[in-house]
């Protein structure tokens, strides 16, 4: 501490007397931010789950794990769905439960094949609601070309659940020669997003109790496996794929930057954000880069392949508005930096937890 004493300070520095008012890290209870897909989620994994059952497969950090089984490479993923309200413009819990897991599989390049579906139902929920969710799942599974092969149902007492929770798991086959994972991001890679961002998060917020606003947009929830297949048809050498759900594009890009030890540099003006999303984020004080998507992917591809991949994406209905938004760089490893429209820069950090409306 000898050096610190040279810091000009009116207050004597005595660590013994420090009273840190916010040791949030040591939160003894779960807070909402632990499920927000940001830094708190990452710490929960690091502090609790990894010590308990960590292993090299888990540590690979993909949206899905890639397993070697019986001579085949299987992608395997699971996700729980707890959206409120259950039905929102453009989709429902059922759509998310299928598309979310299908997309997690697709982000390792796999062709999704089978899903499981486990329901936790709250006592007293109308069966018609469960029926609507189930039908939405059936329709989404058909659209995504997957089969719901197994399932389970549990009921909890009234007041102990939020109507309907669904957990799905999925498996799919990873094609030969495909190796997609966040660690493969390389300086020079082109960063491509498959379409306008922020639609899902804003659509759900628009019908959330206490926040209601009228807006003419719908969730972007959609299966992306077919789009990924179209990209891999151009080149199997796609380095990274990620679907920017919770925490938005900002969280996904930060995770990739940290996993690969590279930096990411974006051009603000190139990022497609619908006007309505800009406006909604404007009056809520949110940043579209942090808003959830359910039918978008971000891809890191070698610069030589960028143009062809982009063209293939734009020829596909799920990627018709795909855009080159930046590049992977060697500078500022682990960080995402945006060149603003004015010509300045700003850092886009990993969100801590969920984004909240600001007044300031």
């Amino acid at each position, binding site marked *: 501490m000898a050096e610190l004493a040279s810091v000009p300070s009116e207050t004597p520095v005595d660590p013994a007397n420090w009273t840190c008012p916010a040791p949030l890290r040591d939160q003894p209870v779960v807070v909402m931010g632990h499920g927000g897909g940001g830094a708190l989620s990452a710490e929960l994994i690091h502090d609790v789950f990894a010590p308990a059952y960590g292993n090299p497969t888990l540590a690979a950090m993909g949206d899905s794990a890639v397993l070697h089984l019986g001579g085949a490479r299987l992608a395997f993923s699971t996700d729980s769905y707890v959206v409120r309200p259950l039905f929102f413009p453009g989709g429902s819990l059922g759509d998310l439960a299928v598309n979310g897991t299908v997309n997690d599989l697709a982000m390792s390049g796999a062709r999704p094949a089978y899903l499981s579906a486990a329901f936790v139902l709250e006592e007293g929920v109308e069966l018609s609601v469960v029926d609507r969710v189930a039908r939405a799942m059936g329709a989404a599974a058909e659209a995504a070309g997957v089969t719901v092969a197994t399932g389970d149902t549990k009921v909890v007492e009234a007041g102990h659940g939020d109507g309907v929770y669904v957990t799905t798991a999925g498996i799919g086959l990873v094609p030969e020669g495909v190796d997609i994972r966040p660690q493969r991001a390389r300086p020079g890679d082109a960063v491509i997003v498959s379409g*306008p*961002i922020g639609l899902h998060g804003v659509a759900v917020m*628009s019908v959330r109790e206490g926040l209601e*606003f*009228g*807006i*003419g947009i719908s969730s972007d929830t959609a299966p992306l496996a077919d789009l990924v297949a179209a990209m891999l048809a151009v080149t199997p050498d796609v380095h990274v794929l990620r679907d920017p759900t919770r925490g938005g594009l900002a969280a996904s890009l930060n995770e990739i930057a940290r996993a690969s030890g590279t930096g990411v*540099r974006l*051009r*603000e*003006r190139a*990022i*497609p*954000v*619908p*006007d*309505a999303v*800009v*406006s*909604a984020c*404007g*009056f809520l*004080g949110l*940043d*579209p*880069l942090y808003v959830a998507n359910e039918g978008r992917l971000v891809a890191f591809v070698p610069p030589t392949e960028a143009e062809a991949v982009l063209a293939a994406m734009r020829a596909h209905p799920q990627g018709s508005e795909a855009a080159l938004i*930046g*590049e992977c*760089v060697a*500078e500022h490893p682990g960080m995402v*930096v*945006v*060149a*603003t*429209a004015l*010509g*300045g*820069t700003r850092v886009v950090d990993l969100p801590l937890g969920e984004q909240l409306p*600001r*007044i*300031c």
Partner: protein
Amino acid sequence: MCLAVPGKVVSIDHRADPLTGVIDFGGVQKQACLEYLPDLRVGEYVIVHVGFALQRLDEASARASLELFEQLGLLEEEFGDAWRQAAEQAGDAVPHNPESAHDKSGSEAR
């Protein structure tokens, strides 16, 4: 301190207590309390903060400001292209064309 955004008054409910209207913020519609601008009319623009219209926006003033800005910077050449320099320092991956930067896409993230 204060996130307040401009919006256009699309309807006013004169029976509401307190006085309430619907404001359009670029395609997003939200109710706001109009009690502090009681003589507001549909079609006018206001700034809204935490659900309250606080002040009218004056179009003539806005136009005058923009016209003033247009007339500035005549000494540009003399001082070199600071804009491009700044953009390069800021790490714009693609060389910045100041002319194309003028295009309004209306879809940038901000």
